[in-house]
């Protein structure tokens, strides 16, 4: 297996690598260390970069970034390609990880096994149960974001506008 090419080899349109989800699944199924090594370089460096943006000092961001990579190995069996791409999944791990040490707060999470959970509409679930479609949507999103100014606040604002379209305006 080839090691990941340098970060410059990635393109905005293609993202970090469409096959990274498959590598996480290999880790889950076969404890494949080579797959872990391939994921280490691109995600470790970006998680560190992400943590520094939230104000972590250099040493702390280094330590936390390593901690954020361990769940890729330990919790690979929880990765569900029908729900999230590799980047989204790793993003959620990194996001939850910094809140504890940096903000000294818990981050309450939805529990998907809660007996009270109101299930998704079966028709929607059928749509989402397709990893290929998820990847296509990731690609579309990436392309759309690639055309925006690279300011995070701007992107989040636009994401909100998009959401407003999804949820609709409610009188709450």
């Amino acid at each position: 297996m080839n090691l990941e090419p340098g970060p410059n080899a990635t393109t905005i349109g293609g993202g970090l690598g469409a096959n990274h989800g498959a590598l996480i699944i290999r880790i889950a199924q076969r404890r494949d260390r080579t797959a872990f090594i391939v994921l280490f370089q691109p995600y470790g460096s970006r998680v560190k970069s992400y943590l520094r943006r939230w104000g972590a000092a250099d040493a702390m961001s280094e330590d936390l970034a390593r901690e954020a990579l361990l769940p890729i190995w330990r919790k690979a069996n929880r990765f569900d390609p029908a729900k999230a791409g590799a980047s989204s999944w790793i993003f959620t791990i990194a996001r939850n990880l910094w809140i504890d040490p940096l903000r000294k707060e818990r981050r309450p999470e939805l529990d998907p096994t809660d007996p009270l959970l109101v299930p998704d509409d079966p028709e929607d679930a059928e749509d989402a149960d397709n990893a290929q479609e998820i990847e296509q949507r990731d690609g579309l999103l990436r392309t759309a974001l690639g055309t925006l100014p690279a300011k995070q606040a701007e992107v989040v604002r636009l994401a909100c506008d998009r959401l407003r379209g999804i949820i609709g305006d409610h009188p709450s």
Partner: protein
Amino acid sequence: MTPAILPMHHLEPGVLAAYASGALGEGPSLLVASHLTFCPDCRAAVTDLDRVGGTLLDELGPDALNGDALDKLLARLDEPGTIPTPRQEPAPPGEGGSELAALPAPIRSYLSLIDQDGTLPWKMLAPGVRQIRLMPRGADGANARLFKLAPHTSLPDHGHEGCEWTLVLTGSFTDAGQRFARGDVAHADRDTIHAPVTGAEDCICLIITDAPLRYTGLLGRLIQPVTDL
């Protein structure tokens, strides 16, 4: 199984975005996680936002880890605990039909620290109004509490210094002509003066405030120093 009743009143997109980005504080995050339990639409929206987060992560300029980071990590892969472990079970929902069983897991996880036998440690605030404080007031002034309002209880008119989010967990209330039931979120800000009235059953709500409330009516001004609302 009866079809679930979906919430009619949702969270604002900006709040969901703050939750997904990790920028939202603990109290409001508890409210979001609880609403998501009842609301497939907002859940799907947060999944979309996580996807935005993943895309942004991809596009960050990389900040290389130290040269020994990979070796340090590989050395830990075989540590005990690296075998996939079942996910931590949520706090037990308690006896069926108990108040605790009617509360979503994120809230149960706070209550399990208080009491696990299914009865909740309500403290009376005023006739027909009981509360449980779920966490200490945050550094940002945020406050997270459960309220239990008796049937046909009306809260005094009150306004706000900051924002107030209310998530209905059991029962219902009406406010300014709108009905709020299980899973619904009511949001009030500094321009809102409102006076909710509960329906025919006990109404349990999660209420998050980011600043003390100010009561406008005479009754409110009388009870405010006592209740720390």
